[in-house]
């Protein structure tokens, strides 16, 4: 208690020197909280968007389907089983049929994944309702990335070519009826959505699907022969691993920032012990034990971290809240990385993040304050009183 009281007095008395250290530490603390907040916010947004647009609450895959092997697509569709047919009618799952195809925008050829989807589905956010539009051509919906790559826009008519289940090539005209804007590149780039019934006819695969996306309230207790259930967490594995990697990469920056802050504290402590030798001698002459003096210097150093947390609490909190409200605009082209990323990421600051980061900074500050303070215990008080460099 005495060490805390005296350390507080010393720090307040030291004025600018204290505040410079506190501001450096507070800046590091702020950067760590904010940056981790951005990553957490990104993670949350990506999870939310991927759930809403792509993975739903889980999926059933036809047993041959492998999303990393396009050659499996020919054999990875099967007749819709009764139980999923019933759920589809109820609107709690939606079937998707996939096949490889090519599109010919302006005479150029481009490979793509052709997806059949029910227009009346509400399980994922793809604006499929417009696939019901009456048209001579096949109505098709694409995402903004596909539209950009193929230079297509709403109303454009283009040719697509595909192979049916017998391997025969066929072609038809499609009309772009909607270009949707979403943050999930994996359902957009190189993909085109048409009515599932149309695609079934095109592939000569009536009432067949490659996968089912599960919505809310679906009971997944039943095993379905020929179909493999993929739970939500599995479908998010890649995304979560990527976020983990981002955090590890970010940690390197925090390490450097932390190192700079700790260097400032260490430097201050070392300087203090040389510059304040007379003071140390005086403490000892007045009856403080060496352990008390070492504790005082350690607490003094560690108190920088406490003041930094208080500083962040007072100055940083409104700033963090403001940054949370305006978010961080991501630079153009960021979504080329293939991760679901919104135009603006809103940071999320969890209690664990704030308390954990503050504790980490506190413990490290305590250690770097203690290390030079140990030198005091080796000082001769008679020399210290005179301020002799030892």
């Amino acid at each position: 208690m005495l060490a805390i009281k005296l350390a507080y007095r010393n720090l307040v008395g030291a004025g600018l020197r204290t505040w410079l250290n506190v501001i450096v530490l507070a800046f590091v603390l702020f950067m760590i909280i904010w940056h981790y907040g951005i990553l957490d916010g990104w993670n949350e947004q990506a999870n939310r968007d991927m759930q809403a647009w792509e993975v739903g609450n889980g999926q059933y895959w036809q047993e041959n389907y492998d999303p990393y092997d396009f050659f499996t697509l020919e054999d990875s569709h099967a007749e819709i089983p009764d139980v999923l047919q019933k759920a589809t009618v109820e609107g709690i799952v939606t079937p998707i049929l996939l096949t490889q195809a090519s599109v010919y925008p302006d005479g150029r050829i481009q490979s793509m994944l052709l997806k059949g989807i029910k227009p009346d589905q509400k399980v994922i956010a793809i604006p499929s309702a417009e696939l019901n539009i009456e048209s001579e051509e096949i109505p098709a919906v694409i995402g903004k990335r596909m539209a950009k790559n193929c230079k297509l826009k709403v109303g454009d008519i283009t040719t697509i070519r595909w192979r049916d289940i017998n391997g025969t090539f066929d072609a038809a005209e499609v009309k772009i009826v909607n270009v949707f804007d979403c943050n999930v590149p994996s359902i957009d780039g190189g993909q085109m959505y048409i009515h599932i019934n149309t695609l079934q006819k095109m592939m000569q695969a009536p009432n067949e699907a490659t996968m089912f996306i599960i919505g809310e309230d679906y009971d997944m207790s039943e095993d379905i022969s020929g179909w493999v259930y993929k739970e939500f967490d599995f479908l998010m594995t890649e995304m979560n691993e990527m976020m983990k990697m981002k955090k590890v990469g970010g940690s390197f920056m925090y390490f450097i920032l932390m190192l700079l802050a700790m260097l400032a504290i260490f430097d201050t402590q070392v300087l203090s012990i040389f510059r304040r030798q007379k003071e140390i001698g005086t403490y000892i002459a007045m009856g403080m034990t060496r352990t008390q003096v070492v504790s005082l210097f350690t607490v003094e150093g560690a108190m920088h971290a406490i003041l930094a947390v208080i500083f962040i609490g007072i100055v940083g909190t409104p700033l963090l809240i403001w940054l949370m409200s305006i978010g961080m605009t991501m630079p153009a082209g960021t979504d080329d990385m293939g991760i679901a990323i919104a135009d603006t990421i809103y940071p999320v600051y969890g209690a664990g993040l704030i308390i954990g980061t503050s504790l980490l900074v506190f413990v490290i500050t305590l250690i770097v304050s203690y290390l030079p303070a140990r030198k005091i215990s080796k000082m001769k008080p008679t020399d210290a009183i005179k301020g002799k460099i030892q």
Partner: protein
Amino acid sequence: MEQNTLITIDNLVKRFPVGKGEFTALNGINLTINPGEFTGIVGPSGSGKTTLLNIIGSLDNATEGDAVVMGESTSNLSLKSAAKLRRKHLGFIFQTYNLLPVYTVYENVEFPLLLLNMSGAERKKAVMDALNWVGITDKVKSRPAQLSGGECQRVAIARAMVKKPVIVLADEPTANLDAANSHNILKMMLKLNEELKTTFIFATHDDKVIKYLKRKISLEDGKVVKDELTKVKGE
């Protein structure tokens, strides 16, 4: 040891390593100091005054012999016990004042009482009393850098006296002061010695201090060459 004796120094030797050899700072000192004395250890530079004062103050250890302070052998004291002796019973006044630069006058004087875990109210009363003794109550909020040398030394005296120690050890307390300030400071210490019965032990070669002493112990080359009672001339 006489019952009345406050400090007994018995055949005290202190040697310091110098290069490959040794320098003998104190060589067979024998002394007794009684409560309430206003004593000075006098002698030229290098005679061993400060070393003797440091050993009495348990800041340093004897190489041979012993200094018994208030019944405690300083040679056998652990660091913790030595700190306790200093904290409770000893006050120090230094040539360069050694005030804590970031503290105010009030906080500097309060410091020894914080170490004694006194309550806030007790501390406040004791600090104001001490500042009253030295006549510096108008500067309680000033920091040492804002004070003159004389004022700093008065604060240092208040800090040494605030806990009403049994012994005050003053090492060249007037070395950085002009004549007028030196006399004022010494008169003040003499008054405190008479009123509070505090034992003052000075290490000095300053004539201004010497003429206030009631007992003068002369050191030369680490040996006591003269120990005499004197009449205070400074008043």
